[in-house]
């Protein structure tokens, strides 16, 4: 702005350019004098996730326009790096099931919280937001937000306001794991929607939540500028920077170049081969254990080559995971199952997943296959990769490794969105089984028991009723999952979940390859950033 004004006053073109530059320097200097601290963050998405309340772009979108602008009732502790986070109070200060009927959950709401537009947060706002995503007839219903969050809160049956600061939510069946669904459900301001003429497109540009940041400016596909909300209710989580600019740069190399070039101050998911360059230039790589796994999900329907447990085990033993970690520049950890071995739900599987070529070959021989007489399988993979890591070279490497033990893999490559369609429809659907597709490669978020275990292992969730893609069914597992839902003691829950995971590994439900470590690279200027062991990250921890 300043440079523009200065420019209009002069006639000489050179002088104008010089003045423009001078003005820019001035602006920078001024902002420094005023002390406005700024961090520009290059994110891996092609667009800023939805800002209306429920972000799109999967779990990764929540850290950017979800938990920055909004708060959930029950939050996830994301400002700790040294241990896994846990559920903590958000806009609800406490919650517990009714001892008489544990399907009814009471939520006590936080007093004195204001939305960015100044309106009051209360029970009406909670009900209004539930209707916004669950009741198609409600005037504030938004199909887009609904589509994002509805599958993430499948247990909710009905809800009612008890008083101004108490809400009761009833689940469809007894579900002890229900609170884990709530960090996904965010509360926006009903007043703002009223004020903007019931227009969600306008709300997207001027959203109003209760979160630690406010949205100052949104240029679709180019940037979102978040500014600190000084009135945030949780004083321990005030944003450390005044302004946080999110810049979508989907291409990994371009993102890395922008960081090296000083156009941004931090990035997520750097290309591994640029890491030495970052180290040489004094940049800091931050990574942590992350609830994520990158597997091949097998179909076990009749006709699939993976119905034989020996073959599934052989595939798991044929992969040199250390080599893949090397390919990823160390930005991953070898998988020993669906979960990290330190997880409380890991259990004690008898099948140890490791690289053992001889054992893999022996199993294949027993199953009747060899390098000379290979088993053939078609696997569906995504064109641009799964968003994280180097999917393409990883797939090529796995293809090569499986060939060594006599599994000849052919890839069917589709775009990511199309892959999701194949995934949702299940292995039995014509689009998969009909084309001979018997395994699928996607990155899975494994943040909580539902995301990590039950959605893949419970026979009631066999696609298309869920994402138990390959039709896995084990009565012992089903039984354990039924018990978990009715178990409110966390210790007992952990034991049952560990049993489920143990069974999944022993049944070699998937070919587990690596866990992502969700790497970030920070310029020397960015001194503070706490990376949680989750996909939810707390951007208020970013500081100079």
């Amino acid at each position, binding site marked *: 702005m300043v440079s523009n004004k200065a420019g209009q006053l002069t006639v000489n073109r050179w002088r104008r350019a010089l003045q423009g530059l001078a003005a820019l320097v001035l602006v920078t200097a001024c902002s420094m004098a005023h002390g406005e601290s700024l961090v520009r963050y290059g994110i891996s998405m092609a667009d800023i996730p939805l800002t209306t309340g429920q972000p799109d772009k999967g779990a990764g979108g929540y850290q950017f326009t979800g938990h920055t602008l909004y708060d959930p009732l029950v939050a996830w502790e994301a400002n700790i790096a040294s241990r896994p986070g846990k559920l903590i109070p958000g806009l609800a200060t406490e919650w517990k099931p009714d001892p008489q009927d544990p399907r009814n959950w009471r939520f006590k709401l936080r007093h004195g919280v204001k939305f960015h537009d100044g309106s009051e947060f209360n029970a009406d706002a909670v009900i209004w937001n539930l209707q916004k995503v669950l009741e198609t007839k409600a005037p504030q219903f938004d199909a887009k937000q609904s589509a994002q969050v509805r599958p993430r809160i499948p247990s909710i049956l009905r809800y009612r306001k008890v008083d101004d600061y108490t809400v009761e939510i009833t689940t469809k069946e007894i579900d002890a794991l229900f609170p884990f669904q709530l960090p996904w459900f965010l509360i926006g301001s009903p007043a703002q929607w009223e004020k903007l003429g019931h227009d969600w497109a306008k709300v997207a540009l001027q959203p109003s939540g209760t979160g630690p940041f406010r949205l100052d400016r949104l240029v679709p596909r180019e940037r979102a500028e978040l500014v600190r909300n000084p009135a945030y209710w949780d004083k321990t989580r005030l944003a450390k920077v005044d302004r946080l600019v999110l810049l979508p740069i989907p291409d990994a190399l371009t993102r890395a170049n922008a960081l090296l070039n000083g156009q941004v101050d931090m990035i997520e998911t750097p290309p591994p*081969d*640029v890491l030495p360059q970052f180290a040489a230039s004094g940049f800091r790589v931050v990574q942590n254990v992350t609830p994520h796994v990158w597997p091949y999900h097998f179909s076990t329907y009749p006709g699939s080559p993976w119905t034989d447990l020996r073959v599934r085990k052989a595939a798991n033993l044929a992969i040199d995971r250390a080599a893949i970690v090397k*390919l990823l520049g160390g930005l991953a950890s070898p998988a020993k199952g669906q979960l990290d071995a330190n997880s409380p739900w890991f259990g004690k599987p008898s099948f140890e997943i490791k690289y053992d070529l001889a054992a893999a070959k022996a199993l294949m021989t027993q199953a009747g296959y060899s390098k000379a007489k290979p088993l053939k399988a078609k696997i569906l993979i995504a064109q641009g990769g799964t968003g994280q890591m180097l999917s393409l*070279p990883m*797939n090529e490497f796995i293809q090569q490794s499986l060939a060594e033990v006599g599994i000849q893999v052919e890839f069917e*490559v589709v775009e990511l969105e199309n892959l999701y369609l194949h995934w949702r429809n299940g292995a039995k659907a014509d689009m998969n089984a009909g084309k001979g597709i018997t395994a699928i490669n996607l990155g899975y978020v494994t943040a909580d028991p539902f995301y990590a275990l039950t959605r893949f292992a419970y026979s009631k969730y066999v696609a298309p009723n869920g994402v138990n893609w390959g039709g896995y069914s084990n009565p012992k597992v089903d039984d354990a999952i039924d018990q978990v839902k009715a178990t409110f003691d966390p210790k007992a829950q952990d034991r049952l979940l560990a049993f489920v995971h143990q069974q999944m590994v022993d049944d070699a439900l998937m070919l587990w390859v690596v866990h992502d470590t969700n790497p970030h690279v920070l310029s020397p200027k960015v001194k503070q950033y706490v990376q949680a062991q989750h996909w939810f990250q707390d951007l208020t921890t970013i500081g100079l």
Partner: protein
Amino acid sequence: MTVLATVQAGVLATARPAVHWRHSLIARLLASPASAGSLLLLTLIVGGALLAPWVAPADPYQASMLRRLLPVGSPGFPLGTDEIGRDMLSRLIWGGRLSLLMGVTPVALAFGIGTAIGLVAGYAGGWLNTLVMRVLDVFYAFPSVLLAVAVTGALGPGLNNSILALTLVFIPQVVRIAESATTQVRRLEYVDAARISGASTIAILWQHVLGNVLGPVFVYATGLVSVSMILASGLSFLGLGVRPPEAEWGLMLNTLRSAIYLNPAVAALPGALIFLTSMAFNLLADGLRSALERQG
């Protein structure tokens, strides 16, 4: 405009009943060092691609993480290794197969189909000509990269789809050249003479017109191969072309991109090969054109 000028020159140069001009043409072509050099380079690349199983020193699909991104000149890997440790030289030789296939096939298909449509439209004239040319004008109204990307994007990525898309892009261009050449030849005296002497349309087209139209269209098509190579590898680069683990230069350029810091020379190789091949086709087309002009 220049294209049409060339066509005119070409048609006038070659418009004679039955002259064996091809022999002298090749001699003229080889006289130019640029054309001769391009031919040699193309022979090497095409030869390598055709004989890949015998020429390539290693298996282009044999990966090993222990030797990834070795630099050019490493023992056993003269051009280094790629991001998962496959021999670059072998992959580049094998990659020539798909890259050339993707570059040449659309042009060859467009050459055949376009010439046929152009011949018919140009020779028939009248409403048929108008109809054909106006319909093609619609496709001509799409910038070529855009059309290729849009068609491949719509059909879905893959080798066949990108070849189809590129063919669709080139047909209208070839038709224009063929139609304009045919229209000119049709008016020449000896064609009239043949018609009056009772020769059938097919015979006239085959014996008198085609021979004179093929020259300029062929020259034009040679020039298109370069465009096609760049476009085809561009599609692979965007992720719309061939699928992994196939060796193809555009895809290799894409997957090696992030190695540009670790090993710039290796990362630059696929792009350099696309560049060289495309340049060779361009120089060859230039040489053909001027040889054709000088012949008149």
